[in-house]
């Protein structure tokens, strides 16, 4: 199995290197052939691994030790269990779809080869992240995907806004990564090792251990909170979410792959992976729960007022990530990962569908200039409908099962703040339905609002674009019903995820469902849903969207002018950006300017640097003169040296 596991990421790396270094030499067609072949092989290998793991085998081992320093060893190692095998399959599958789609989307771009190189490299880094068996490699993957995300957001590096967005993403992620790194340092300090297995094994012993000298701070709580700060950055949780909407400056395939389906879920994956630590800190779980609930609700609300098609989907991603985080906080890790998987399918679908629309509209992204597109792009339309139904959580589509499980799990949770979280995520269902159908209606229904020149060129996208859409749509429809039973209630994750009995909300849900129906869990889920508000909220959301954007399209304007203040708040995204821009960015720049003028120019440059340099330069000129060139001077120096040493040591 080791070779199989090793080969999975390495083929992607190889493809990335070939595409990157020889892309120009081998041409565009060969570049995408190489990249797609690499990812396809990687996907097949992941499937093999997945089947193998589901058959009961697992792998945990070190492949290569890079360095050992002070008792900690830095190594490349893989932990392949149910969790990582699932992630591998999802990541390589979505990546493969996006690779194929890119042929159509980037067809006219001059950076074609560069793009393929980046996304293959991304797949490699993401695989290294999820397959890791130690914190160092996790961090490597974590940073690597961050760098590639940075490169890809700024892919069109001549665009001012793209450069601003990638810098922003990078800086905000630095904040998160700093917490993450501190968390890793805490793990090393507390456990003395960075390998998962020993850390997880000894976590129960360390539960409740207080940090000496601090008031009532538990080690595990501090570590978990710091690790979660990392997850907040990568998975865009409030208040570190600000980079994700701006990341839409990157090409659409990237938004689908990195900023919806895979990289942003790394934080979710990480917390699920660390469940043996988080389980022992209810404080940390509560924080996770509340942050997730705020994100799910507040970010969904912003999605309603966006007019850029990609930004709507972006805010929807934020909101859905909030759902996953809530699941983690409620100790329903399995349902968090389940939602991660279904979300990867339908969100990639929605992004790629939006991309297909954007291609047809000649890179126009404003929904106010669209409308009535369903007549021109039937395949895109139908797949988008399926994706939206899945996102809104209408049964029997994938999103219904995964999202309802989360809501039911939160309902069962006994943590402080779970009541608040339950209300927030339930209301968010309503909002989700509104914005996703608003997007659908504004884009595909109603009257056409674009220019005649654009309209005359409207046509369905080529097959390389629609094929991934169709495949993803199929997955969006069936993946929920298919995997719900085993993933949520079966022993699917085995030992990969630890849930303490007092936190096991999913087991309670299982009892409820079992009582309700006796046998079939899917049917149970449905009957359970219609007895709770969530289902009706989703339906109400769809109807509201229909009423507002199709039946009475003039109404939104009226509401907007009536509730001007609320609209302004949402339009400004609660003012996070302005706040960061003024306080952090502006403050840091002022501080930096002051430090530069005073401490840098005067003290360091003037005195320390130039002063030392001048002194050393002068000294070197003086000492140089000792080298006179006369052999008797040299001999004399030797004798003096000898005499000095003798006086020092012998006498």
């Amino acid at each position, binding site marked *: 199995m080791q070779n199989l596991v090793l080969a999975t990421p390495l083929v992607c790396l190889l493809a990335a290197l070939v595409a990157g270094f020889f892309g120009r030499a081998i041409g565009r067609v060969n570049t995408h052939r190489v990249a797609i072949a690499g990812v396809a092989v990687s996907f097949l290998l992941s499937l093999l691994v997945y089947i193998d793991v589901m058959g009961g085998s697992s792998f945990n081992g070190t492949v290569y030790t*890079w360095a050992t320093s002070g008792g900690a060893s830095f190594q490349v190692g893989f932990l392949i269990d149910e969790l990582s095998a699932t992630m591998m399959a999802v990541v390589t599958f979505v990546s493969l779809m996006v690779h194929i789609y890119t042929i159509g989307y980037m067809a006219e771009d001059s950076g074609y080869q560069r793009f393929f190189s980046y996304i293959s490299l991304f797949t490699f880094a993401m695989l290294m992240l999820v397959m890791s068996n130690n914190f160092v490699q996790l961090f490597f993957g974590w940073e690597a995907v961050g760098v590639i995300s940075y490169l890809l957001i700024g892919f069109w590096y001549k665009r001012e806004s793209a450069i601003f967005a990638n810098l922003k993403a990078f800086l905000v992620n630095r904040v998160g990564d700093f917490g993450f790194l501190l968390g890793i340092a805490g793990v090393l300090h507390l456990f003395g090792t960075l390998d998962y297995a020993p850390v997880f094994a000894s976590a129960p012993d360390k539960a409740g251990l207080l940090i000496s000298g601090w008031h009532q701070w538990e080690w595990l709580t501090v570590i978990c909170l710091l690790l979660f700060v990392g997850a907040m950055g990568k998975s865009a949780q409030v208040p570190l979410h600000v980079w994700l909407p701006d990341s839409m400056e990157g090409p659409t395939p990237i938004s689908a792959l990195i900023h919806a389906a895979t990289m942003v879920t790394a934080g979710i994956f990480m917390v699920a992976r660390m469940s043996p630590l988080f389980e022992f800190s209810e404080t940390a779980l509560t924080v996770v729960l509340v942050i997730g609930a705020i994100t799910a609700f507040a970010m969904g609300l912003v999605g309603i007022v966006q007019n850029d098609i990609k930004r709507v989907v972006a805010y929807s991603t934020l909101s859905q990530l909030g759902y996953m985080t809530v699941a983690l906080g409620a100790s329903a890790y399995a349902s968090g990962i389940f939602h991660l998987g279904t979300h990867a399918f339908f969100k990639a679908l929605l992004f790629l569908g939006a991309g297909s629309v954007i291609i047809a509209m000649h890179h126009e992204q404003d929904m106010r200039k669209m409308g009535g597109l369903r007549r021109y792009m039937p395949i895109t339309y139908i797949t988008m409908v399926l994706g939206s139904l899945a996102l809104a959580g209408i049964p029997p589509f994938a999103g219904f099962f995964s999202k309802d499980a989360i809501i039911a799990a939160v309902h069962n949770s006994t943590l402080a703040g779970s009541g608040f979280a339950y209300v927030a995520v339930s209301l968010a269902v309503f909002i989700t339905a509104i914005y996703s159908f608003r997007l659908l209606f504004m884009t595909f229904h109603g009257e056409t609002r674009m220019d005649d020149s654009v309209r005359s060129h409207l046509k369905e996208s080529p097959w390389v674009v629609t094929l991934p859409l169709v495949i993803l749509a199929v997955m969006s429809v069936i993946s929920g019903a298919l995997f719900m039973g085993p993933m949520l209630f079966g022993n699917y994750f085995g030992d990969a995820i630890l849930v303490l009995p007092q936190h096991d909300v999913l087991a309670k849900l299982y009892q409820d469902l079992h009582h309700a129906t006796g046998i079939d869990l899917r049917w149970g889920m449905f009957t359970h849903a219609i007895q709770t508000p969530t289902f009706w909220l989703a339906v109400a959301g769809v109807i509201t969207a229909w009423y507002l954007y199709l039946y009475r399209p003039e109404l939104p304007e009226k509401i907007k002018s009536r509730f001007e203040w609320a609209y302004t708040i949402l339009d400004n995204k609660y003012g996070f950006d302005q706040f960061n821009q003024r306080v952090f960015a502006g403050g840091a720049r002022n501080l930096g300017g002051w430090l530069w003028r005073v401490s840098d120019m005067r003290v360091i440059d003037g005195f320390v640097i130039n002063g030392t340099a001048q002194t*050393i330069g002068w000294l070197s000129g003086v000492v140089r003169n000792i080298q006179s060139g006369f052999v008797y001077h040299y001999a004399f120096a030797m004798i003096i040296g*000898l005499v000095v*040493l003798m006086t020092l040591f012998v006498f």
Partner: protein
Amino acid sequence: MNIDLNIAAALPEMILATMACLILLIDAFYGNRYRQLTCWTSIATLLLVALLAASDISTQSDVAFGGMYFDDPLGNLLKAAIFLSTAVVFLYSREYLEQRDIQSGEFYVLGLFGALGMSIMASAGNFLTIYLGLELLALSLYALVAFNRKSDRSTEAAMKYFVLGAIASGILLYGLSILYGLTGTLDITGVSTALANSEVNNQAITLALVFIVVSLAFKLGAVPFHMWLPDVYQGSPTATTLYLGSAPKLAAFAMIMRLLVGGLENFHSSWQEMLVILAILSMGAGNLIAIAQTNIKRMLAYSTISHMGFFLLGILSATETGYSASLFYVMVYSVMALGTFGMILLFSRRGFEAEELSDFKGLGQHHPWYAFLMLLLMFSMAGVPPTVGFYAKLSVIRSVLQVELVWVAVVAVLFAVVGAFYYLRVIKLVYFDHAEGEALIVESPVANKVMLSINVLALIVVLPWMGEIISFCTEVITSLAG
């Protein structure tokens, strides 16, 4: 006394000695007709004996010639390294000698005899054997330095080197004679046991130590016994500088291991303090004076002095970690020295020695690949990660920290920063300045270019195996004979 000859242990040396004599004859009779013959047979011989020595690295320690000669992993490793680097020296020098119409046959023969001397030093089990090897090396080197008879500088450098070298030899012999007087033996193991068992006069031992350390410092070029080094580096033909700068450092390491560690380790507290002084003076003076140089060979001479200061850090910590750190350092250093002087040779051509710093201006525009190699070399010399130069410095500094000489480590790091200046200046000249006059031309044969590329790239591609290399060095040190 039962003398066990065990001649097979010295097989590489015997082959080398025989071949050196044979090649001398070959060159005398066929040298003019087949100009390349001497060079290639020399290289082939060296590769053969390097292979022999390398194949013997992991075997058990053994003694031969009644204890005069050690056959242990350390000796074999150093010998393999010495032979290999000498072979590389010959390869780089071939074109250079050719272009200058220098009688090249003797160059190789002298080089081979020097290598023989070094390998005897590496395996010496007796003070006399060490001295024998040392003198064989030194005499070859005197001749090599003076090789370009037409050049005044070359002759002057050889003269200085000879006079000062003779003084250093005298000092060494004096130190050894005191040891002989105290212990009645010249065997390294014998001296070591004699000093451990009996009551000996501490002051007399320290006196002997001072003399021995001074002579070692002269060999290494540690301050204040370094005066010969810049003049000799600059004055010699670059081919000789290349030879002088690489393999003899390995031999000097062997000599230190045999004399100080093998024979006098019980007195390490005394020599530790002496080496601290030498190391700090070398790092300081070497780095400071290098800044003021305009000639690259002279700059590298001072850089060598500072490197020897760093190298001594490992030895002076007097632990196995320290010795292996120094072993690693000296090996890395010889690879770097080969690369740097190889680079100078690459750009030298008839009537032009690329030895002024300003000659390298604008290299980045005309020869991006060699500019990149130069960058790697300078980064490695300065100790910038991820080159091996960084790990070399890291390991010696760490070994000093382990014996809690924190202030020495701090001083070392500070001087490393000072040193970074003149290495980075080369990079600045290469990449950010424009060439004055005509650009550099590369006339060297393909073999040199390929070898130089491999040589320099080795500084970075071995990175994934760093752990193995360092633990291998430790293994070699722990299995030291004697």
